[in-house]
């Protein structure tokens, strides 16, 4: 082997090992001095702290591991809400930026420039401390459509009370599986016989009919529970029944989706602009209708440009959701790296678990993305 190639590698390796050795040696000494032993056994201990908002049953008598789960689920919840809204807003704004209407294009551009250039943390604070604080108290809240109550203590919306919810969910899953089969079949049919099947209308029909059947035949029923105001004490009111969305969740989801939507809008715009004009003209010249041009020629090519950076933005949104700690939304960072760390003092273990969780999340997504990119890449000969 070449000496010139081995030397730099050896040097790097030695430096990295030295740094790691130095750190772990110090960590050992420090932990010995403080009388802590390294280990993840504390996860099964009783946590004895409470969390404001949780998707699964949790109180102080549960273990630290359960607290971790609560935080993780809350992170996933706010990320999913954020991703859904960011995608909707982002696509609409991205298309608006391509509009030939000057006013619409400018409005979209101003929105993008404005929300993109203000730190996300500031936006979260703005929604939480300034905008949502201007909402009325529960007893003074004017209901929207009679059932939605926007108050300073959170949003109260009607909740569904389900009977036989599982059958309903099975019916939705069955519909999705059926749609996949229909698509597969339609594609085969087109390849073999050149006949197109209206996949979209069939899919929508399936999605409506199967769950409807579950209502009619499967014994599923849903009733709506409307929140009702209730007096707790002389001056304190709240709503009972229905679903309560805490203001932390709302301001976080709002800020995350408005902020990320600007980036998604830019991705969408770049994607649609990235399809060359010749492609559209060629498609039109072989007699495709405008809808077909969009569906069969423009969108497949635009999506190839749009999807990779957009997934990156989803990943960013998920990571940014950790800013929840600033407004006390009980996400992974606040519950686990905050409260649990303060109680146990196990900095190394807890921070490493937290980082590993995010790392797993993003590496999974990036592996999936690499696979997807390979799949949709233009196959050149």
């Amino acid at each position, binding site marked *: 082997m070449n000496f010139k*190639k081995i030397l730099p590698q050896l040097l*790097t390796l030695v430096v990295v090992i030295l740094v790691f050795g130095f750190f772990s040696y*110090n960590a050992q000494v420090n932990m010995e001095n403080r009388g802590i032993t390294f280990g993840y056994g504390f996860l099964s201990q009783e946590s004895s702290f409470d969390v404001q908002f949780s998707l699964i049953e949790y109180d102080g008598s549960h273990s630290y591991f359960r607290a971790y789960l609560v935080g993780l689920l809350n992170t996933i919840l706010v990320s999913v809400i954020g991703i859904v809204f960011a995608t909707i807003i982002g696509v609409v704004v991205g298309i608006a930026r391509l509009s030939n209407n000057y006013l619409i294009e400018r409005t979209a551009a101003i929105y993008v420039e404005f929300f993109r250039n203000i730190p996300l943390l500031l936006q979260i604070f703005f929604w939480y401390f*300034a*905008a949502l604080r201007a909402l009325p108290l529960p007893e003074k809240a004017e209901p929207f459509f009679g059932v939605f109550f926007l108050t300073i203590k959170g949003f109260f919306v009607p909740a569904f009370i389900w009977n036989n919810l599982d059958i309903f969910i099975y019916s939705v899953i069955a519909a999705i599986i059926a749609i996949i089969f229909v698509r597969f079949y339609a594609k085969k049919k087109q390849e073999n016989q050149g006949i197109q099947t209206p996949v979209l209308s069939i899919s929508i029909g399936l999605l409506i009919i199967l769950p409807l059947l579950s209502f009619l035949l499967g014994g599923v029923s849903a009733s709506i529970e409307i929140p009702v105001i209730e007096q707790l004490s002389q001056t304190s009111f709240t709503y009972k029944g229905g679903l309560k969305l805490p203001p932390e969740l709302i301001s976080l989801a709002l800020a995350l989706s408005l902020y990320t939507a600007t980036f998604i809008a830019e991705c969408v715009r770049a994607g649609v602009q990235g399809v060359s004009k010749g492609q559209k003209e060629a498609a039109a010249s072989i007699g495709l209708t405008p809808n077909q041009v969009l569906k069969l020629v423009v969108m497949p090519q635009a999506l190839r440009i749009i999807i990779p950076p957009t997934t990156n933005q989803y990943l960013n949104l998920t990571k940014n959701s950790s800013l929840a700690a600033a407004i006390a939304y009980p996400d992974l*960072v606040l519950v686990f790296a905050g409260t649990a760390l303060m109680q146990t003092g196990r900095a190394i273990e807890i921070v490493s678990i937290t980082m590993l969780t995010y790392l797993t999340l993003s590496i999974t997504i990036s592996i999936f993305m690499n696979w997807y990119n390979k799949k949709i890449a233009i196959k050149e000969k």
Partner: protein
Amino acid sequence: MNKLNFLSPDKKNLYTYLYSGISLFSLSILIVFLNSFFSLDLTSFLPGTINYFLPLIIGFMGLHLIRIEYSGIKFLDIINKNINTNKFNALLSLLIIFVVIKSIPPLLSWFIIDANFVGDSKDACSGSGACWAYIKTWFNRFMYGMYPNAEQWRINLSFIALAFLGGVGFFATEKFKKYLTLYYVIIYPIIAFLFIFFFISGGPIFFDFSYGIIAAVISIVIGFFIPSKFKMYYFLIIPITIYILLKYVFFYEELIELGKIQAFEWVETGAWGGLSLTFIVSFFCLIFCFPVGLFLSLGRRSDLPIIKYISIGFIEFWRGVPLITVLFMSSVMFPMFLPEDMFIDKLVRVIIAISLFEAAYVAEVIRGGLQALPRGQYDAAKSLGMGYWKMHIFVILPQALKLVIPGIANTFLALVKDTPLIFVVGLLEIVGMLNLAKTNPEWLGFAMEGYVFASIVFFIICYAMSKYSYNLEQKYKTER
């Protein structure tokens, strides 16, 4: 006389359509305008819902009437082309115009007309508008944090001096242009650090770092006389040797005495804050993350396996975790990794953490540029007999970096926008100071003003940066 058909206006009765359309359109705008600015309701005699949608209906009809293609009137054609191409566009245009007209008066009254500009206590703000007196009273804190009032001139002086030194590049003559990179990458950061250490922090005249600077200067001066064959080994060994010699052999005793002299009062980093801290943190992170990211990107594309995989691991690690956990790590976990007696200042730890974090992103951006270069460039450089470093410095990097200016600018913008996160370790830059001021019992209830103020400040900074990067991109754009 042609027949008038109001459902499909055409060119034949152009002026009839035009006048009726424009008058309807103006009428709709007038209604909304009067309603919004003078709260006059011209059409209150109509039932509620119709009254509400009347301007929209009238305006829509008006726009419909003036939608005449190729009318020959230049102004009309421009309007039609830009806001009035079809029914849907006309409706959206009207909605946007009405929303803008509607939102001007409340915004105006909140920002200016009903706002309070004078006064130095909460009592001065009684109106329904914004309380700018609050910003005025707290302005010093928002800019300088807890830095002592009497010493704030030190921050101002340093920033002015650094801005001036940073602008040197614009005035450099052709002769000095080639040294500019060296200046900006090595000399300017050192000067900036010294300014911040001596002036803003008030550190002692002589300290550990000074030995390093002296050692570096001496070794660079001697370095000019070393044959280039040995230069690499020389720079690996000599500076450290000189440093050790200086510190432990030559002037040890005398310099310890010098090290106790302080020109200014010491202000610990915990007291720094406000916008000046935002600038300090972003400035140093910008400077550090770029070279680190550059080396990481080269490492990732290297064909030496160990270097390649270490770079990949490093980049993917930092890109996979949120910044807030990195800062958590630097504040609660990192001290565990250091010897007991070793203490690294909070601000330094934060700057290192953010720099490493952003370096991973910079590395990926630069890698994109490196990958975009055609292989021919590498082959051509190699065929001229260039080595790895010569090839990269003179051929590859200048082209690759030019390609990724927008990406790097975006990363830098993200960095500036990430600085408020340092509240995690207890450093309060402008957003942190806002939250502190908000909880002051004498100034409760002015959160909105504070956030609006900070938003404007950040918007100006970030918008200016993005526009500058756009200019830079245009300037270095070469046809390929």
